[in-house]
């Protein structure tokens, strides 16, 4: 019985080792595949959605400010321009040109 359990343990360990080997291999393959997935097509939709979203939100806020405060057309002008800025920021973040605020802040904790 003991012997059998020892054998089982040994076999389990071996299986674990082999699985770990396979897993890293699979991970590497996955990384490679992910690199290939970043086709121009998906990249284009990603970047354009980021850009469109920023401009849309800017325009929406501008419109709301104008209708609520009656400052037509200044709210639209200001917030549309801010929306463009935010859109460019979004795109640069999506492409990794500009860091997201998170990691930068992690260094100097102000709490």
């Amino acid at each position, binding site marked *: 019985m003991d012997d059998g359990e020892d054998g089982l343990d040994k076999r389990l360990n071996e299986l674990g080792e082999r699985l770990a080997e396979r897993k890293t291999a699979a991970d590497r393959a996955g990384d490679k595949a992910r690199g290939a*997935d970043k086709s121009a*097509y*998906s990249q284009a*939709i*990603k970047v*354009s*959605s*980021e850009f*469109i*979203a*920023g401009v*849309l*939100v*800017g325009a929406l*806020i501008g419109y709301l400010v104008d209708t609520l405060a009656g400052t037509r057309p200044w709210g639209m002008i200001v*917030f549309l321009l*801010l*929306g463009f*800025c*935010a*859109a460019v*920021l*979004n795109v640069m*973040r999506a492409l990794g040109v500009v860091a997201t*605020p*998170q990691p*930068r*802040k*992690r260094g*100097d*904790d*102000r*709490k």
Partner: protein
Amino acid sequence: MSAADKVDPIHQFHLKELVHIEFGGLNLSFTNSSLFMAITVIAAAGFLYFMTSSRALVPGRGQSVAEMSYEFVANMLRDGAGSHGMKFFPLVFSLFMFILVANLFGMIPYFFTITSHIIVTFALAILVIGLVVVYGFYKHGFHFLNLFVPSGVPGVLLPLVVAIEVISFLSRPISLSVRLFANMLAGHITLKVFAGFVFSLGSLGAIGVAGAVLPLLMAVALTGLEFLVAFLQAYVFAVLTCMYLNDALHPGH
């Protein structure tokens, strides 16, 4: 396939009322979209339930798939939002499975693709962002607003930068929903257009049939690409959900 289907690649996205329900002046009809949402939920939940019901120590094929999807999302969430993020696991997992199954159902001919409607994807995205905002304020109070104040910005520029950051934050649900919706919509339209080429070229006689081979090959390739996109978009949605939840958990850390 009728002539209307052939020339109109948008036809597949039409909503049809199956059961007309009107409530308080609102049209709450049960449409083909609702039907496929229900089917998606039942299929995803049923698949996971039946595949894990045996709870074998050595998983079979189905159970293995169910466990792999669990592991996949759990790892994604741990990487994206830390171990604290695991309390949101049910949400992220449900979102991932719902979008994945909905996208894959969209690949079956004559099935309705619910994620190709922006209102559906927007509802999912606003759910995520709403949760981020509510949980962020609940957990951190006004510290959550630190998210919008990058450090090391000169005081004069601060209002401008904060405004841009706020707009950038508000644009997240839109970019999240537009990305999923645009991918599914564009993919299905392209597929339909190329399939339409095959059809119309094929009816032109011998030369047409020979020429139809090219768009047919393209349609086959696109079908493969669409399956990839179906997976990829569910993955991207879930990953971004994790990233945003990370903001709610650790704003300005």
